């Protein structure tokens, strides 16, 4: 039996009158890659935001490593070990690459230099550009910085929101390789991704969402073979 890392139990979230999540439950186990699949507006980002404490949860609960973290403040959620790589390769654009990584280690000031070493080892390009202002990096480099900065906080769970958005195909496969490597090093990953084919190939387990609900779930390979999923999300009817 694999140990559970994250359990979301029947949460609902709304923005004013608009309900973005309705009774959504998901689980992430140790060592696993879990994909959230769904079209525009399905609620993937809202789910990650709710886990991160950025969005108020009305009903249900969120349990991380055995602790209830429902509606906990975002900095505490981050401190407890959830690292979100937000949508749109977000960096602190007026600060240098090195400074971005240093602030990423906020909760572990003693270990910043050792974490830096391992991040630079995984991302030699960040080392090369360590004194460059982050806003002047390419999109792909910014995404690597965003991932590296998240690793500085020694997360026990990585969540990535559309890490491929707005990047060139070659860079996209590079980013996915990086995430794959991180998973092999032991990081469980929760990935939100519009591209269903990519997400199902990448994940061990997957949840297919539509208008705030989970429609299908199961091992990613099985979902890929599910005719309904294929029809609606993979653009085929075979």
């Amino acid at each position: 039996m694999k140990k559970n890392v994250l359990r979301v139990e029947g949460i609902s979230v709304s923005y004013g009158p608009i309900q973005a999540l309705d009774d959504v439950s998901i689980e992430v186990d140790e060592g696993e890659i879990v994909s959230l699949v769904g079209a525009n507006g399905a609620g993937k980002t809202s789910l990650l935001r709710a886990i991160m404490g950025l969005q108020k949860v009305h009903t249900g609960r969120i349990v991380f490593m055995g602790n209830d973290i429902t509606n906990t403040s975002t900095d505490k959620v981050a401190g407890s070990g959830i690292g979100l790589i937000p949508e749109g390769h977000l960096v602190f654009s007026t600060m240098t690459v090195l400074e971005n990584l240093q602030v990423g280690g906020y909760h572990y000031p003693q270990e910043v230099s050792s974490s830096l070493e391992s991040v630079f080892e995984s991302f030699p390009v960040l080392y090369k550009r360590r004194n460059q202002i982050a806003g002047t990096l390419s999109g792909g480099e910014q995404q690597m910085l965003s991932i590296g900065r998240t690793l500085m906080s020694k997360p026990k769970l990585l969540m990535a929101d559309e890490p491929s958005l707005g990047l060139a195909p070659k860079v996209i496969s590079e980013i996915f390789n990086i995430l794959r490597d991180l998973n092999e090093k032991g990081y469980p990953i929760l990935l939100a991704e519009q591209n269903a084919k990519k997400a199902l190939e990448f994940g061990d387990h997957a949840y297919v969402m539509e208008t705030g609900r989970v429609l299908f779930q199961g091992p990613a390979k099985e979902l890929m073979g599910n005719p309904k999923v294929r029809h609606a999300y993979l653009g085929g009817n075979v």
Partner: protein
Amino acid sequence: MEIFVAQLLNGLSLGSIYVLLVLGFNLMLVVAKIIQFAYPHLVVLSMYVCWGMLKYTNNMFLVVLASIVSCVIVNVAIEPIFRALSKKHGLDINVSFVVSISIALLITDVMSHALNYGFPIAFPTDWVGKSVLNFGLITFSVGQAYALIGGIAAVALFFYLLYRTRQGRVFRALSENSVLASIIGIPVVKTRILSYAIAGLLGGVTAVLFARLLGSASPSLGDFVAMKVVAVSILAGLGNLKGGLVCGLLLGIAESLAMGYLPGSWSNAIAFMMILIIMLIKPEGLFGIQI
């Protein structure tokens, strides 16, 4: 020429006070996203604290400490008001502007009713001191020397804190993107409170230097200076720390030169006229808005 050098020195001392005030003001603006119009009033209030302390002790260390502690306490005590406002209105700097003007009026009223019967206060003459420099028309008082040297030291420390330390990086990260800052684990409220405390600390030091430079203070000094601090901050580009440094010094020098060469009472009109013209040409300020 001698007049010019004399006024330049005057201007640099006065300018370094403006710079300190603008830095504290801008720190809260970029980190906590508030316009704290009453910040210079708090500094003037701390000048009153210095003055009160000086009646009991001549120990410079104790006087500076009292000034810093009072300024930190009052500035941090005001923070919950702005936090409550931002809960209601979101982070709206216009709302904070209006509210801080009320706080400023309140402080001015307290000073003009409850402190020294509303009369201006005068610091001991040895605070301003005799001239350390005396060449013909050029005189440079001990107080001016304090303001200039203390000002340079405080500004250097401030920039060191902001650009070379862990806490400085946290401040800058939060000022650029508060949501991203919280995502990477930075406690937003705590860090904002810390920015009030640092601004208070800076204000306490500024109060001592200002007292030594002027040798006196009055209830209306807060309004007078606050107007200039806001003007310099807007002129430089709101929240632009380096711009504030340059423009604060420039204002000090311009004012002093105007005072030396023109009928003294016109120096304010000239300063604000210049600001008006520059704002018409460059609405985003000389160095660009950074909030």
